[in-house]
């Protein structure tokens, strides 16, 4: 029962921030400045999601995150498809684990 209440409560507080803008944006018209601000959000959001979290992929070994991210940066710089970038990063980390 306790778990069920927890799940439902978590569901509500997760859904609210995702849903509220759908209701509110209807009524607001953003000006040019605000549009520009919003258009930057995807980039800053992803930057913040990647860094510094990537350094602690393995709490005990920063090299795992660094090597994986480095390989991902190189592969994506070379315009590889996303799937290849991800697989490349995983394989490089498997190699690091086998070497350490």
């Amino acid at each position, binding site marked *: 029962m306790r778990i069920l209440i927890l799940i439902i409560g978590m569901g509500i507080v997760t859904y609210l921030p995702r849903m509220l*803008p759908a209701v509110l944006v209807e009524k607001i018209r953003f000006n040019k400045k605000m549009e*520009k601000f919003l*258009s930057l959000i995807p980039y800053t*959001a992803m930057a*913040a999601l*990647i860094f510094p979290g990537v350094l602690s992929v393995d709490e005990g070994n920063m090299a795992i995150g660094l090597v994986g991210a480095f*390989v991902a940066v190189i592969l994506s710089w070379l*315009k590889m498809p996303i799937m290849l970038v991800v697989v490349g990063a995983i394989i490089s980390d498997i190699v690091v684990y086998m070497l350490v």
Partner: protein
Amino acid sequence: MKRFISGVKTGLPICMGVIPVGISFGIIARQGGLESWQAILMSIIVFAGASQIMSIGMLVQGASVPAIIFATFLINLRHLIMSTYVMNRLKEKGLLKKMALAYVLCDESFALFSMSEEGEDDDIFLFGINVVLGISWIVSTAIGCIALSVLPDTISKSLGIAFYASFIAILMPNIRKNMQLFLVVIITGIINSMFGMFFSSSTALIFSILIGACIGMVIIKDEERSME
């Protein structure tokens, strides 16, 4: 239908990032004392990787239900910002449709959607992305519950990089052409690391997203369109 399929195709590579997290959540949830059905139900209802994993950690440490719910709220506040962006782009669509699409709005679907070119039937496109992500999240949770620890340690640990690698792969094509945008991304990462020393990681995340965008307003010249 074409836009739906294109959404599904866009979402597929990101499953590589979602599935390992789902599997780990399944494993962690079982180890933390949840029944398999409870873990899967949580993945269906909550649909938020980081907060689900955190909730198990808090449960194990004996935290109260309201405390866990409040922490979940804080972690997911960032979606308020992301959803504002998405909903602004879907402005012309029906409210009920948008409320339904909001249900599966997560970091991944936001990333894919916001980096895609604007087009007709963006709502159907986003729905395609959401369906793929939703199914892979729920199914991978179930796999984690069953598998527990069948995977060799080296491989399951290496899967942790998938989440970050997929974000790097989404971000790179857009910033490699625009050095000012590249700079904003780097600065935001640095701000987030500094804030992380003083605040919880979810608070740091929210503030660095907003401050990073403010800095971008100054650095990036108006005539250069940042979104394509």
